[in-house]
């Protein structure tokens, strides 16, 4: 997936680009309207992230100019949360709208949904309030969006394939770290992070360590 990010705040842009690229999303970056117009010539994007307040104009005007030529869905970023600003963004052709400050996790989810990379039912998994889309790499627990590192995704995919049966420690290590020497701390760190990400506060625990059997992704009474 390749997207265009038009944002004049360099720090915010750098952080977003790093995060998106870690999520497997390629990013073209423009700091101004003029740069954006230049970059997007002859280029197709799966989605466009457009800041409303830019140094040489508003993102709204650019979106209006692109109405006839651009087919990529547009997501606006803005510091203003007033209703009239949202309506103006949607009137300019936006399909989505995000108010700063926003969480990068939310940005990723919205881009993926905008770009319609949803897959068929076979790659969807649901357990209690946990919902996983392996193809789009979207994972949510109720309304909470979860961001997993690549190793955590590998582990989740492995546990899903075997669920509700447990997966042994050896299999986990061979799958997640196929060509590396792994110490116990690395294994524990991975499991702790995944457990913390999947279950917070009063949510039902889904990742269970079974003595001498391994780790299972299931409800406690399965």
């Amino acid at each position, binding site marked *: 997936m390749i997207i265009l990010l038009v944002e004049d705040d360099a720090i915010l842009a750098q952080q977003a680009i790093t*995060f998106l690229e*870690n999520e497997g999303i390629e990013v073209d970056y423009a700091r101004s309207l003029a740069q954006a117009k230049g970059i997007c010539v002859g280029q197709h994007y799966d989605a466009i992230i457009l800041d409303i307040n830019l140094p040489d104009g508003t993102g709204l005007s650019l979106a209006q100019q692109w109405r006839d030529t651009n087919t990529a869905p547009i997501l606006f970023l803005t510091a203003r949360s007033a209703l009239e600003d949202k309506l103006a963004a949607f009137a300019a052709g936006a399909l989505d709208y995000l108010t700063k400050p926003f*969480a990068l996790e939310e940005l990723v989810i919205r881009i993926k949904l905008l770009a319609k990379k949803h897959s068929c039912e076979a790659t969807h998994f649901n357990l209690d309030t946990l919902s996983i889309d392996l193809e789009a790499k979207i994972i949510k627990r109720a309304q909470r969006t979860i961001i997993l*590192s690549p190793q955590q995704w590998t582990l989740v995919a492995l546990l899903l394939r075997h669920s509700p049966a447990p997966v042994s420690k050896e299999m986990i290590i061979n799958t997640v770290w196929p060509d590396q020497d792994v110490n116990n701390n690395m294994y524990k*760190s991975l499991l702790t*992070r995944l457990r*913390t990400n999947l279950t917070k506060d009063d949510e039902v625990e889904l990742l269970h360590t079974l003595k001498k059997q391994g780790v299972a992704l299931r409800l406690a009474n399965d």
Partner: protein
Amino acid sequence: MTKVKQHSISQFLVLRTAITLLTIIVIWIAIVLNSYHYALDDTAAHYLFYDAEQLAENHLAQPYIDDFKIVTKNINDLPAWIIDLWQQQQLELNEVSLLQHNRDDVYILPYSTNTTPIFVVHYFAQAESLSLLPWLALIAGILTVVIIVININSAKKIITETLKLHATVHDKKIRTFYFDEFDTVAIQLRSIRAKEQDAQQKERLLSAFLSHEVRTPLSQINHCLSLFAQQDDLPLAALPIIDQLSHAHKNLTTSSDAILALWQLEECHLHEVNLTTYLKNWQTNLANKGVCIVLKMSIKTLKIKTYKPLLNLMLEQISRNYQHYANGDLQVTLCETGITFTNTTNKDITQKGNGLGFMIINQACKQLNWHYNVTQQADMFTVRLTFNY
């Protein structure tokens, strides 16, 4: 728009009053001059004194009596009623008196000489004097009409201008006034409004600036935490540190939201909160810290539009005050109109706080449009937050 010539309201009123009074004076003088020939003035007195001196110098036969006057030294030549007056000492020597008798105007002068006084009496038939009554009635009628017309017009003008001024107070239209004073008030009002709008605009800009300055680094911290979450092979020892950082960031974000909301709160920030659930959670959280709250709720569910960070801030101040200065349990009562917090004060604590907590609660209530009230009766201390729907 044609330019209206402006007038001073005081000039306006003085001029009209002066015209009215001047008119009365002029008319009155005209009547006096033209109609009332027989007023008691020096002319009439002159002729009485003249006659008296004529008699005293023996230029006039004594007694002189005709239909129009009597000049005599003998009091018995006078009519009985004048004799009575003289005997009752109602007639002054060398003073002319004007009396009415039998439809006559009678001037009487007792003129003193070295010997007996000379009495001079002049008669004027009242029928020969023009009656003032019709004139007075005419003047009164004319003046009444004039005064009514002038005053009605003046009142109409003043009322119209006053209504225009009232309208200017309520709307923002620019109007020109007939009176200088009203125009001055309107100009002052516009100036005050402009300054107020300017101050509000500055406050909004400052709030936006502060919000941006606070939220930008918070946002950057949040993004860094998200980037951390994407990293593989994080050391085990680093996990609790990152977790602590994440909690601290969440608390800082909530506190910043609350503090910024104390300054300026937008309508779009208000969301429905189930106060019954909220207070129960608050009770549980404080119980975990060893603080006992007795919660009484007269309703099962109460949902109200409010801003949670401000609510958290207020309850934090209330619980802090309670823990510092109170004895026994904190009684919390929730009803449809508000929340009441009651506790007994700890008499052993003599040092009073600086009032910062209540200042924060007061400001938060202002932003939420709630009413806040503190009362103390004996050793019972009560804080009442009243909702404003």
